[in-house]
């Protein structure tokens, strides 16, 4: 093991032993639930380890809470997506109801797509969803959103470029 790795490892260990119970308390207060909090503590330190910058952290608690806050927001988005998924599911006829396994896969796929769409402007996002998932034509989308067909075309290109770049980023993280 290179010397760098050794000192990184000891920096992470110190960080963990000195701050993990504080972080757990911080998260539990916000989540109201010790299990979720323990999961997020774990995830936070995984982030710290993979970032490989434990040695440069000057103010551990603000740093850890910043990372944890990002994870809380992810959790929040996940729950928000699950909620709207359940609402969407309510309108599916019983006969076409996906099995629990299918649902788990579907939900994960939707989470990935939701992440890929993250950061798109609202009109671009709307146009993209109308085309990809509602199956509307460009003229129909143009009418629905009150924009020109040319704009729909540009929005679609923009959205696809964005999704593609996000997909590359997601494969990296």
């Amino acid at each position: 093991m290179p010397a760098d790795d050794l000192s990184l490892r000891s920096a992470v260990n110190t960080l963990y032993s000195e701050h993990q119970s504080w972080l757990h308390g911080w998260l539990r207060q916000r989540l109201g639930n010790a299990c979720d909090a323990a999961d997020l503590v774990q995830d936070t330190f995984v982030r710290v380890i993979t970032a490989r910058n434990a040695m440069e952290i000057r103010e551990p608690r603000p740093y850890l809470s910043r990372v944890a806050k990002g994870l809380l927001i992810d959790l929040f988005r996940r729950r928000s997506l699950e909620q709207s998924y359940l609402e969407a599911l309510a309108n599916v006829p019983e006969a076409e109801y996906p099995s629990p396994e299918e649902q788990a896969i579907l939900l994960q796929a939707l989470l990935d797509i939701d992440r890929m769409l993250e950061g798109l402007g609202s009109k671009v996002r709307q146009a993209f969803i109308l085309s990809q998932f509602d199956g509307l034509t460009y003229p129909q989308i143009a009418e629905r959103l009150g924009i020109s067909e040319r704009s729909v075309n540009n929005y679609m290109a923009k959205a696809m470029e964005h999704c593609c770049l996000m997909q590359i980023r997601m494969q990296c993280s």
Partner: protein
Amino acid sequence: MSLCSPPLSAAERQAISAAARWYARFRSGSQTEQEQQAWLQWLADDQLHREAWTRMQQVDEQMAAVPGRLAAPTLRGASHSRREVLRGMVLVAAAGSLGALGWRSETAQNLLADYRTQVGERREVRLADGSSLLLNTDTSVNVRFDGQQRVLELLWGEILVNSVVDPLQRPFRVDTRYGQVLASGARFLVRSSAEGDQVAAVDQALQVSPSARGAAQRLDAGRHLQLNALGLGPVALNDVTLGAWRQGSIIAINRPLGELLADLSRYRRGVVRCDPRIAELKISGAFPIDNTDLALAALHSGFALTIKRYTPYWVTVSAA
């Protein structure tokens, strides 16, 4: 090539951008023969173009793998982008204002509150001044105590407050979306939901002031009132149904089934749906909130209602 290569080169980015423009043309369904030829030429020109196009196809396949009728409403419903969420949090922090994110239990500000209970959880919290708080299900509260004041901010949910008189004589206040409750040494209930707020005085009078127009009003012990964007509602007498959650139940006296189920679903993850044809059916009884399956079973056996479960998260109540 590793999956995670170094940042894209300018040429790679350009290729992706061009591929996306081609994709958009194809998707319009109105591309011309000429464009088709130009696209083939573009593909033939450069290995980077072909790689970029392959990526486009991968993204397209990923989108096509989910059924549109589920994906479209789901993605539209969950349009809180990370940026929106963060911006909301910044706004809240800057203005100290509520409602910047809309009014739902799972907005980021609620999730990041000082104290929070999960759906189905109740929790008692002791505050620095000796006052205590009982948080009902799915509740978020911020606590701001300083040298001058004691303020609780009820973001969502329901609390029972046991406030103590302060040796420092700092006032004790609860801020809700639609108003403020002033109390000291009083025991009282506050609830904040999508429909508005409710304040109930238990053992002493409170002072309630609306955020909307209108003067503050004294609320005597044993009485409650609603407040919303329009101001304060009429005062009514408390009855046994109020605050029964402290003992772990919902007490219903001639309550419309639709309302009762809406109340029950506060304590249960997922959706409880009431067949609209029986929503007005009057129900009386006590229903446990710590085990909502039992409550549903009681509706089935006591009122001959059909409880249909599509998934544990989706329950429909209808006539037998």
